[in-house]
């Protein structure tokens, strides 16, 4: 892989770009390392505020116009819109529909139902509907 550094103290914003054939775990880890400003998001549970680590999040889903963050142990409320938390998320997360984002490391398997819909079963036994159009994105993220 060719690596190129452009160093100029006058740059307004530091950034790194990757030009890849496909995403791999190694590149994902490097990207996380570079993007280590925050590895958590502030969420609410029973009125209290908690820092929820991204690595602990299984699923983020909009229900009744509220954004819920599901970890293995708890459910938290994010006081913002899905697109706002989407901007903070690392590359481990994939939008599987307009209202759901999953941590693909927590994905157990996909299943096509008799009505033609596709369900994603997570390791925490939750299921979330996957849009057929997002299957390609999921393939790319898994490096297929």
């Amino acid at each position: 892989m060719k690596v190129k550094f452009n160093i100029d103290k006058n740059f307004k914003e530091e950034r790194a770009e990757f030009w890849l054939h496909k995403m791999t775990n190694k590149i994902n880890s490097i990207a996380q390392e570079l993007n280590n400003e925050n590895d958590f998001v502030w969420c609410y549970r029973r009125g209290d505020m908690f820092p929820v680590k991204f690595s602990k999040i299984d699923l983020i889903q909009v229900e009744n116009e509220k954004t819920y963050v599901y970890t293995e142990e708890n459910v938290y409320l994010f006081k913002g819109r899905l697109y706002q938390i989407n901007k903070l998320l690392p590359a481990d997360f994939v939008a599987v529909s307009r209202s759901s984002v999953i941590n693909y490391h927590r994905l157990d398997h996909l299943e096509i139902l008799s009505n033609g819909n596709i369900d994603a079963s997570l390791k925490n036994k939750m299921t979330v509907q996957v849009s057929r159009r997002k299957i390609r994105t999921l393939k790319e993220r898994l490096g297929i």
Partner: protein
Amino acid sequence: MKYLRNILISGLIGIGIGMIWLLVELLFSMNSNNLHSVTISGTEFAFWIVAAFVIGVFFYLAGLIFQKDNWSLRKQFVINFFVCFVAWTFFELMINNFSLSFGLFFGIVVSFVIMYAIAYGGYFFKLNRDISKINQKLKQVK
């Protein structure tokens, strides 16, 4: 740009399917003659190419119905089927000078159902295969 690329690809797929259809029609028109005696004019061939391209693009645009996520798959299929069927019937009537007969209509229905089955059967076969690949990959990383 992506939108234009998808339209071009769908048109080219239409040409591919159209050429297979033309070949089948030519083979049926052979009767007892051999393949060397079968002819097609340049105008007719060009018309097939253009028509197949347009039909491919039409199917792509009609396929955008499947992006209505708030509709059930059954509803999406039914609406898409009838939209495409009406367009296909109009096209067939147009190339037959709008002279409708039972035989023509029966041929329209059969040819459309076969084309639809090939197009969407292929789509769902690929979708099933993609999901199998994803599940295999997920098993590997467990």
